[in-house]
């Protein structure tokens, strides 16, 4: 078109392109910054980690001369008879089934905000004569992206009450078992 001088004008397509570029830059800056600045999402993760840590800590009490509606973490670990679970199977071990019911009850105890959206898996890690073992003992589902892990160490001794045939047959004492709880929001 030879009748108009339209050099230097911005048209609709360029406007959209510019908006996309600016949005992209903006997103990039925010994403990069969020690595440094503590943010709401991190606080939510922290709360989830705190809840799972609290559950393991609360269960870890000395069962000598004490009683509770739930057993102590040590009593469940001691009663575990070496059964591992897969994604499709139920929990075969009666002690671990009871532990599963107790942890679920603790997570969902709140009347106002039932935390039914929290799922978890439980894993035992220990070392004996045949090497390192990492056994899944409770599986409630596939962990999500923002899963949190908390751990607690439990020590089993030879004269502990309620030791399962599995631990007695293993005969590695004192046996330190790392109880690992993997927690996530559904």
């Amino acid at each position, binding site marked *: 078109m030879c009748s108009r001088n339209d050099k230097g004008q911005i048209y609709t397509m360029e406007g*959209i392109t510019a908006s996309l570029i600016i949005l992209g830059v903006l997103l990039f800056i925010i994403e990069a910054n969020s690595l440094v600045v503590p943010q709401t999402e991190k606080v939510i993760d922290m709360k989830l980690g705190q809840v799972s840590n609290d559950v393991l800590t609360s269960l870890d009490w000395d069962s000598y001369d004490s009683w509770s509606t739930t057993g102590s973490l040590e009593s469940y670990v001691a009663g575990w008879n070496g059964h591992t679970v897969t994604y499709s199977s139920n929990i075969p071990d009666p002690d671990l089934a009871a532990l599963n019911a107790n942890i679920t009850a603790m997570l969902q105890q709140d009347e106002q905000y039932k935390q039914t959206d929290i799922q978890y898996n439980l894993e035992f890690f220990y070392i004996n004569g045949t090497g390192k073992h990492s056994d899944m003992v409770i599986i409630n589902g596939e962990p999500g992206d923002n899963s949190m892990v908390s751990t607690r160490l439990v020590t089993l001794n030879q004269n502990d009450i309620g030791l399962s045939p599995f631990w007695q047959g293993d005969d590695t004492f004192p046996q330190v078992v790392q109880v690992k709880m993997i927690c996530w929001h559904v």
Partner: protein
Amino acid sequence: MRSIFPETLDNDRGQSSIDFIFGFGVFLLTFIFAISFVTGLFTPFQPDAIDLSSVAYRTSALLVEDPGWFIGVSGIPAGSPSWETYPLNDTEATGAGLRIGLANNKSTPNMLSIDKINAFNVLANDNYSIARDKMGLNGSIESGSIQYDFNITLVMNTTLPSSTNGVKNVTLLNVTSPSSHNNNVELFERKVMVDTGKQLFLNCSISPDQNYQWINISNITPDNYDNITIRIYNALGGVNKIGWSSASGIIPPSSTWVYGDDYMVYLNGDPVYNFLTSGVNLNSSDILEVVIHNSALRDPSGNLYPNIKFIYLHANSPMFPGGSYGIDYFNDQVYRLTDVYYPATLRLELWSYVFA
């Protein structure tokens, strides 16, 4: 290039084109949409969101993982974590400057003491601002002047594994701020265990052959202000009389204790209101708690009655194992004095008017 139009119409430099305004409008719409659609995109850059959550965490950690701290009244060494047994005052001159914590002791986090919980509940409901000071939520102690407000509840789950009556929750702590909260509230939840104190576990499945049971409490010390609690389980029969006696084997003619004031009976956690008229019948899965209040063992000036040496239980069938020798409440090798724990949830809501 020379135009066929006159010079004045041909020069349109410096004008913004309709297309440009449209394009820029599209960009602005996208920008505003992106900000409003992605909730919390800029939340991390607001100082209050960060500040409130860290204060909420700090407050919950102090309550759940710390036994508290105590300084200041005459005759009591500083640092005693048993702040709940002394009167709490605002100023250090008249009493205890302290930090409130609910844990039993430093080495057992998440295990809360029922005495501390009760003391905190009374304090915070009587005098909210003192409790706020002692929790470190009144910023005037530090450099700034930020005041935080809070609501706290602690709900304990006492459902027995054998229960068929559904979930049983007990609210131990309910503190509500006198001022209502604004929109920006941080919520923090902690899972804990509550140590509800010691009970004598009387397992009645061990050769039950007696209608009577004497519990020896003569070893009580003057500074023991705990209630006497006897937990009867694995029993088949009915308990219908409770009293005190000066020696084992002596059946008291009638109890001078008043039901409700001096002692209480709980069946599976629920008070038995008609105990005096009908007693209470037990199945093997039932748990009966007999609670003798400490005040029933003391005269009005607080001294222990010298004659109350045994607690006497009577049943309508031979369901008790102990015979007449008397079980020592404080130090029996078979029937142990046992701590009773229940899982609980502590909920903290925290806000500040500085961050509206």
